[in-house]
């Protein structure tokens, strides 16, 4: 189901995105890895997966918050891979702070990348999905978008928005064979959660530990193969948001 398909993974050079790239490549997908700044890391994951799994991988630098840049990048990917079957919107940033003192730039930056970035990617990939009469979108949201998180109003709002986007796209495109789901990771061991080490919520994870990027990647692979699931938000959070 994944073998031979072409996937785009945004934010694919590090953290959860990198684990998703490795997982999809290990199952035989060809992967276009979109990265914002870490060219060396993106190149490295492509080379490593190509050698290890024999898949075709290529890194593309693109700021997903830029509508026009996304259009051009998707067109380039189409030219080089032929089409796209799987889109994983993983690119995300945090600019944590208290809402009472949060500069508007921190709100805009987070919404622009996390929410608009996913919108832009879906906007420009949907034509390809409609042509193929198949497509699978997985948006990486967050438990912050489900239960809120003090100090992360901007991030939580962007992720809650992403869940609304997921369900709307799922409804809009279901009749065309296009599925759209979200994953809501909890606290996953990445660079991004370093700032959360003091979060009291960490002690209330029922499974008693942080998650691993590979555990989120496993859920992505599951949703990509789950033909009868659309509009779902799958928590991968050790039970924290149940």
């Amino acid at each position, binding site marked *: 189901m994944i073998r031979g398909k072409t996937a785009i993974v945004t934010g694919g050079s590090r953290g959860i995105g990198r684990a998703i790239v490795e997982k999809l490549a290990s199952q035989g997908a060809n992967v276009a890895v979109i990265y914002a700044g870490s060219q060396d890391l993106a190149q490295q994951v492509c080379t490593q997966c190509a050698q290890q799994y024999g898949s075709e991988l290529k890194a593309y630098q693109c700021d997903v918050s830029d509508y026009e840049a996304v259009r051009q990048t998707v067109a380039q990917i189409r030219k080089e891979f032929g089409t796209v079957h799987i889109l994983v919107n993983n690119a995300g940033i945090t600019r944590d702070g208290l809402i009472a003192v949060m500069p508007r730039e921190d709100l805009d930056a987070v919404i622009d990348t996390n929410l608009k970035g996913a919108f832009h990617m879906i906007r420009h990939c949907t*034509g390809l999905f409609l042509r193929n009469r198949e497509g699978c979108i997985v948006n990486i949201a967050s438990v912050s978008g489900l239960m809120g998180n003090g100090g992360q109003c901007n991030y939580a709002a962007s992720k809650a928005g992403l869940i609304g986007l997921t369900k709307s796209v799922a409804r809009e*495109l279901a009749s*065309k064979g296009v599925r759209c789901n979200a994953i809501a990771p909890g606290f996953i061991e990445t660079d991004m959660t370093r700032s959360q080490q003091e979060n009291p919520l960490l002690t209330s994870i029922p499974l008693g530990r942080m998650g691993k990027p590979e555990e989120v990647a496993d859920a992505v692979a599951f949703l990509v193969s789950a033909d009868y699931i659309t509009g779902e938000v799958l928590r991968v959070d050790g039970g924290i948001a149940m």
Partner: protein
Amino acid sequence: MYFEAIAKIVAERTGCEIANIQPESKFSELGIDSLDTVELLMNLEDEIGIEIELDQKVETIGDLDRLIQSKKG
């Protein structure tokens, strides 16, 4: 004029007789909803070999024909 190309794809898609499709035929009357119209456009792009941005409302076969002509022009 892309009327024939459009009519051919619409006929294939809906199973209606190509002779019954006129420039003034509305997509909705042919059983084609707005998302189907977008999909139709994607197929036409491949057939005609141009990229068309659907940035305005098209109600009839003739509307779509004119839109493509204006983009190609």
